[in-house]
């Protein structure tokens, strides 16, 4: 049996953050408390957005869960494994696509598997083909990243994050740099992709409409120090579509969230 096809202890994809604080020490020795007293648990398969103003530490929180930044106190757990570094069952998409410009689209998507070295070439090829179809760029495999638009590049980056079919997907404002129309379009695509396997998603954004549209639940963050000030369930029916944006509940929840966010 091939390595990639093996089921490794059925990852559930539960994300738990407990007693988390993060302090940064500045050059002059002063300490800044970036995050304080963060506690939450995300059950497997839930789509959760972290919503907050810029500078509230939401990206830092995501980076701690991703294992890219150590916590000062407390920490993050994924399926009872304490996060001490990047986890193989976690996919991540950054604010910028970060595609390697000397690789084709296909090679970029395949990168996580190439690095892992346990996949056969045929397995990788089949998986990349499926992902290219999923992000609606079936013909783009041989193109170079700088030939693609910003939206297309971000779709490729998401395909790369999904390559290993991760149980947990971490996304740090992946559509923040895109125009409003492209963003709404990619929101729909992301939901369609998510519906297939329903990984746990932790999605950082500062866009209220985006958070409401995508999520089962929104964690609202406050500033100084960065902390969670509200945990709001989004009861909108799935699958969501353009019609969802017109529902009265959509506007009402959006207004509630807007009132909570500090300025």
């Amino acid at each position, binding site marked *: 049996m091939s390595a990639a096809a093996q089921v490794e202890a059925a990852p559930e994809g539960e994300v738990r953050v407990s007693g988390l604080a993060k302090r940064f020490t500045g050059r002059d020795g002063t300490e800044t408390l970036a995050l304080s007293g963060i506690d939450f648990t995300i059950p497997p398969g839930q789509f959760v957005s972290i919503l907050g103003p810029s500078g509230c530490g939401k990206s830092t929180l995501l980076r701690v869960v991703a294992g890219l930044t150590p916590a000062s106190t407390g920490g993050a757990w994924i399926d009872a494994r304490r996060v001490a570094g990047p986890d193989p069952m976690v996919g*991540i998409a*950054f604010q910028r696509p970060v595609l390697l410009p*000397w690789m084709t689209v296909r090679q970029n998507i395949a990168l996580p598997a190439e690095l892992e070295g346990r996949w056969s070439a045929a397995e990788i090829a089949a998986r990349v083909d499926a992902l290219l179809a999923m992000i609606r760029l079936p013909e783009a495999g041989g193109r170079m990243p700088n030939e693609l638009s910003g939206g297309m590049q971000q779709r490729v980056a998401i395909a790369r994050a999904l390559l290993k079919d991760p149980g947990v997907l971490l996304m740090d404002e992946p559509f923040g740099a895109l125009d409003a129309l492209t963003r709404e379009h990619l929101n729909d695509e992301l939901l369609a992709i998510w519906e297939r396997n329903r990984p746990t998603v932790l999605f950082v954004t500062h866009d209220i409409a985006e958070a409401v549209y995508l999520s089962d639940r929104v964690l609202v963050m406050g500033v100084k120090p960065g902390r969670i000030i509200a945990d709001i369930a989004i009861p909108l029916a799935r699958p969501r579509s353009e019609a969802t944006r017109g529902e009265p509940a959509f506007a009402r929840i959006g207004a509630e969230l807007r009132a909570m966010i500090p300025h």
Partner: protein
Amino acid sequence: MSGITDSPATAAAPRTRPRLPPQVTRLGIGVLQILGGLAAWEALVRWLEVDPRIVPSPIEVLETLWALFLEGGLVEATGITLLETLGGFVIGSVTGIALAVLLSECAPLRVLLRPYIVALQAVPKVAVAPLFLIWFGFGIESKVALVISIMFFPVLVNTLAGLDSAPEEQLELMRALRATRWQTLRRVKAYVALPYVFASFEVCLVLSLTAAVVAEMLGSGTTVGLGTLINIYGSRMHSAGVFAVLVVLSLLGVAMHALVVWSGRRCLFWLPRQG
């Protein structure tokens, strides 16, 4: 351009001349430039009645070049100088790149070696040539050694700067994908550094040719390179001979530079084309 010249051949009016492809036009201009320069040189030498022992006419230079070529000595000398230059170029680049990788991966070593690198880099390499003659003799080895010393530091310093310039976001991506150090080096840093490496090649290749010639001029008992020929013709007041060797050196330099630029374009395929 007007629509007339761009219209299909069948519809073209008889007064429009067929257009040459741009490569042919460019080549023609280049040839005319060279011929024009040579003609001016010839005219000046005749008009001012310059002593051919001081500045020979281009025709004399070409005659001498042809004679030396037939005699075989020039071809052999060119081969030797080329061997020294390319040998030193390859060895100097490979060791420079290797040390750059080692220093970029091992910070303590970098701190330890930095003062030595700064000090050695500041030494004019040509001043070391007599030492190389003492250590490696009057054969090819001492010339290769000087070329290596010319190549080594620019390649080292440039490669190091290139390896250091890997964007933090790409390094973070590799960390998130649990890449090993070697994988990050091979799949990210190497590509980021490559334009820097080629920039140093472009600068150093002509310098390395200079180094080979200078080393030959400073002392070559057993092998005759182009620098040795310049010494011989110079001591005989044979200006046309010196000029003939200079022509060969210029052609070598231009050819090697073109080769580096061409291979740089091939290797840096993902960068947008400039010019």
